[in-house]
């Protein structure tokens, strides 16, 4: 097994969850209705918890730093999240659409990892799957309601979709060594995951009256997996680690 590629695979999966979890948490007390406020808080908690469990595998199995150090004390260029998750929340339309695009991707990724021969990762995938079902359910409900809502809500969801589509494709940017991992049956290729993802979301978008993008004609926004990020990640990392850096040695 290509261990360093596997480590990077776990790291990018964790980084996506950590950063999106933080973005979700920014809705706390700002949701359009209290139920949505609670929904985004809950999903944030799930995602940050999942990230922590993945960092913990890197820590205990591969000798990486403590999960807190990994989460909060890396330089921006060491994060390997996709740029999709770094973008500011924007309006509720944009946040919902990102949540929809991301969670369907997470769902197919987790389903593919359930049979991963590296057991600690397979175990986490089995656990997270049940949690993400609720995230997907939540996203699907709102995409349907707002897509089939008023002219205004439909137009706003379509705009959000069109803006986020190139970033969403960046979730499937391959990491170095992926080919080897695929050949060894450790992970499913990003290309296959993307195909499964499109097959899952296109019918939901259609049913919501939204025009699914012509995915093959879109240029994905890549670079995140190699540590190249949007202007939004550095300030976010600074904010996430603000309390911890006051005293990194303190006992909580």
């Amino acid at each position, binding site marked *: 097994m290509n261990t360093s590629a596997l480590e990077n695979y776990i790291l990018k999966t964790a980084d996506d969850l950590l950063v999106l979890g933080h973005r979700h948490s920014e809705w706390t007390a700002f949701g359009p209705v209290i139920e949505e406020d609670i929904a985004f808080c809950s999903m944030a*908690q799930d995602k940050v918890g999942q990230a922590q469990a993945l960092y913990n595998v890197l820590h205990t199995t591969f000798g990486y730093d403590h999960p807190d150090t990994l989460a909060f004390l890396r330089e921006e260029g060491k994060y390997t999240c996709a740029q999709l998750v770094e973008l500011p929340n924007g309006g509720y339309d944009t946040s919902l659409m990102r949540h929809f695009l991301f969670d369907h991707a997470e769902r197919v990724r987790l389903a593919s990892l359930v049979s991963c021969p590296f057991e600690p990762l397979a175990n986490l995938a089995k656990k997270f799957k*049940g949690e993400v079902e609720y995230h997907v359910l939540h996203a699907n409900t709102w995409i349907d309601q707002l897509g089939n809502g008023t002219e205004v809500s439909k137009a706003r969801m379509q705009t959000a979709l069109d803006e986020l589509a190139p970033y969403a494709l960046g979730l499937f940017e391959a990491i170095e060594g992926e080919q080897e991992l695929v050949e060894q049956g450790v992970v499913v290729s990003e290309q296959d995951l993307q195909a499964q993802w499109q097959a899952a979301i296109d019918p939901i978008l259609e049913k919501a009256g939204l025009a699914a993008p012509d995915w093959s004609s879109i240029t994905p926004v890549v670079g995140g997996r190699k540590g190249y990020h949007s202007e939004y990640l550095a300030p976010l990392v600074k904010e996430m680690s603000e309390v911890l850096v006051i005293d990194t040695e303190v006992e909580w």
Partner: protein
Amino acid sequence: MVTEQEIWTALDSVMDPEIPKLSVVDLGMVSSISIDESGAAEVEVTPTFAGCPAIDFIKRSIRDAVVELGVESVTVNVNFDRQWNSNMISEKGRALIKDWGLAPPPVHDGYISLDVLQNVACPHCDSRNTTMQTPFGPTLCRSIHYCNNCSQAFEQFKPVTSG
């Protein structure tokens, strides 16, 4: 020497801080208990949710309960080797959840759909004329519903799958 059964019994009084009538055993969080020849005890625990904020507290409470039995060496391992799902809640646990005013999770077949979440039996009047308001509630394990029969909102300990 303390037996495994005695430890199981002791852990039956370690409560979930969110529903303090429900023990970690009834909740299905305790995967296994073992005692080696030297009398050292090892307890395997699996979190209900990856982001469960109470897990460190629960871990300490379990440790304290075993120490109280006179076991000198106690190790509590929290891991995902066995993945919790809501079918692991015992019958007694389900009754306690209802007693606490929450709808217990229906036993699922590994698949959650919107249909499963609609028409949950109201814990106040048992009517199934209910609707789900939102799949997320005040804690990670709860959803919020409304009973059209007795006109009360209620929470459900929601069904969660694994595997």
